[in-house]
């Protein structure tokens, strides 16, 4: 297949959107946390936990959306722990985040072994199926790419719009943005910086967990240990790339996913026969690093990101 043919094929873009979906959820989650001033490095582990929680809930008999809700709730709970440690106690967000990732991951694996002892391969569930939106899905190229996805992918796009509206058009969003910029402005108005930040971290972590659940409930239909595979870390890079703005972050996620889909297809071309497959697999990570380097100087970082707020101190 010609490289150009790949880029205009509907299946390529459909794959790109599919790959982007979990990233969109988790990136929005991280963005919400960071806009409130908390770097959430628990993201990788929270995605693992969400992937498992949603899947096991459905396996145990819950409907698919019930599974999504369970994943969200698990994410919220883990976010709550992160929030309590990093906000009122002001512990290093780096250390807490890494600790949360270790904790969430090991708890997940432990639970998996307890719930499913002695299984050699994990059971499958009836995952979300593609839902073709009438008329829209008939548009050439764009239709099958955008409008023949699973409901969870649509939800990801809705989430971007909702996040954007809440952040920029509501008093709550204003308070979140102010908490990430100058928390004393929030405190001076009698609002609780602690509550706003913990709330943001909990909701954001919920989104991350749903991003993980997308993997087990929409992209695949089962749970594997190394399933998340660094996607969380990539989302942190995507937030920087998106300059902490939902729209730009969405664009970044799709661009990134398109590149990923492209390299998968590239492996099947004559180039793939010459270049070791590991080089292709490295691409997403290298791309993330590149994005960080390029964007690092330009973006407006929330001024109070990673700065704990201690009442009565300046």
């Amino acid at each position, binding site marked *: 297949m010609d490289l150009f043919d790949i880029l205009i094929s509907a299946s390529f873009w459909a794959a790109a959107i599919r790959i982007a979906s979990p990233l969109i959820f988790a990136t929005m989650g991280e963005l919400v946390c960071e806009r409130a001033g908390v770097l959430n490095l628990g993201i990788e582990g929270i995605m693992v936990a969400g992937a498992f929680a949603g899947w096991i809930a459905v396996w145990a008999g819950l409907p698919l959306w019930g599974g999504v809700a369970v994943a969200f709730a698990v994410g919220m709970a883990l976010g709550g722990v992160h929030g309590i440690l990093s906000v009122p106690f002001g512990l290093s967000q780096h250390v807490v985040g890494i600790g949360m990732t270790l904790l969430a991951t090991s708890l997940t694996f432990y639970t998996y072994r307890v719930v499913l002892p002695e299984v050699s391969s994990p059971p499958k569930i009836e995952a979300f199926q593609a839902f073709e939106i009438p008329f829209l899905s008939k548009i050439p190229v764009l239709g099958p790419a955008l409008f023949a996805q699973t409901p969870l992918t649509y939800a990801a796009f809705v989430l971007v719009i909702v996040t954007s509206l809440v952040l920029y058009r*509501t008093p709550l969003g*204003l*308070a979140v*943005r102010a908490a990430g910029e100058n928390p*004393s402005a929030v405190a*001076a108005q*009698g*609002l609780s910086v602690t509550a706003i930040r913990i709330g943001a971290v909990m909701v954001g972590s919920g989104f991350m967990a749903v991003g993980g659940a997308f993997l087990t409930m929409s992209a695949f239909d089962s749970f594997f240990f190394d399933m998340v595979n660094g996607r969380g870390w990539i989302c942190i890079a995507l937030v920087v790339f998106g300059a902490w703005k939902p729209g730009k972050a969405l664009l970044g996620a799709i661009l990134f996913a398109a590149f990923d889909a492209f390299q998968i297809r590239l492996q099947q071309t004559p180039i793939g026969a010459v270049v070791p497959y590991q080089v292709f697999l490295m691409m997403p990570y290298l791309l993330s690093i590149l994005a960080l380097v390029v964007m690092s100087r330009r973006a*407006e970082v929330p001024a109070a990101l990673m700065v704990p707020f201690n*009442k009565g101190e300046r």
Partner: protein
Amino acid sequence: MTGAEPAHPVLRLSDITKRFGALTANDRVSFDLARGEVIALLGENGAGKTTLMNILFGQYTADAGTVEVFGRILPPGAPRAALDAGVGMVHQHFTLAGNLTVWENIVLGAQSLTALSLKPREVKARIRDLSQRFHMKVDPDARVGRLTVGERQRVEILKALYRDAKILILDEPTAVLTPQETDALFATLREAIAQGLSIVFISHKLHEVMAISSRVIVLRHGRLVAERRTEQTSREELAALMVGAEVTAPEIRPSTPGAPLLSLAAVTTAGIGSAPGLDAVTIDLRAGQITGLAGVSGNGQAALSNLISGLTLPLSGEMRIAGQPVGDWTPRMAIGRGVGRIPEDRHRTGTIADFTLTENAILETYASQFARHGWMDWQAARAHAEEMIATYDIRCPGPDVRIRLLSGGNMQKLILGRVLETGPQIVLANQPVRGLDIGAVNYVHGRLAEARDKGAAVLLISEDLDEILRLSDVIHVISEGRLSPAFPRGTMRPEDLGQWMAGHGFEEPAHAS
């Protein structure tokens, strides 16, 4: 209570006591505020003014005592309740988010968090209305990060007025303003009084207290020590009440200036954040002279300070030290060429909070004086620290104490000692007494004058005009990165300097197109 007790107080503080560990910040403080009254709360740094206001505003919970607003007792520790009762506070350090617009900052927290819209149109209309009523010009759509200090303060006041505040508390509101901006602020406050508001005005500047207040309350060491009607008191009396004992400021004798030790010739530097850099600045710092640099903060002082400290290089123009052009330039080189530096922020830049006093004492000289071939000589370092404790009268448990546990004054004495110990040719003193009590202020000023008398060229950067006027042999004003001509001691009145601080009098830049 004194005979001046008003009939219907809008605000009543009763027996407020607050302790922080061993320190009693407020000790049974009580006073009333009547409608339409301006009370000045006077006291030194550390007298407990800000703590008291933070209790009134619900930021802190008092250990004892009550706050009553319009006859109702406020629940302790609830800023929300204070706001709702009509108390508005303008903090000394503005509580504004720089990435948000003026109207966003004003409306933050004023609406229910569950509301689905910010209603920007209504909000902006109301802000315009208020700014007309109180004669405060602001653009609701401007980004706060781009505003001047004076404009930011207006936003802070509007924030309170937007919430229908009936009682305004202003914490050191003039600290960062030019004399002209201060006048404008006072006009606004008088307007507010005329419209029925009441004001608590916190300050340690006596002439302002005399100008704006109807009653003065003096705090000392957390206690209310005096209450006076403004027309029945004088600056001298208030000064004595504030300080307690007679404190004599060191006498600054006129100097005999020598050769320029540090010269800038048409130096231009990059800006720092939103603050401008230097714009073709030419200046000579002469031996045996204190050069004062007046100006509203954020007008290029940081750029000049960083340049002399060795943190930055000029973009164009030339810097000479003792006649020698400066090429490569780092903090270590600055120290090596005899530049002693007292940084603006002693907590963030001047010291390392969790390092011991010894470690902080040798921070600039560890490599040259307390190490050999990369091995530290901790014994010598400790001995040096003990010597400094004695020489500079640093009150502390010993050389092993973590610096974070020292008071601001003692921290500054350590920095001062670190600078003077090396016998510097040039001393950069950036806001050397900010936040210190009068004893420490006099100590620092005395030592700076002493350094000058020994032949050092001292550059004093301060936002406090009184300090500049008192200490400087020659004064420059900085505004938007440009430097005024040199004004010798005694040739300028504060109002004249204020004109320069507001940017008047500078020649239009030649390169303007």
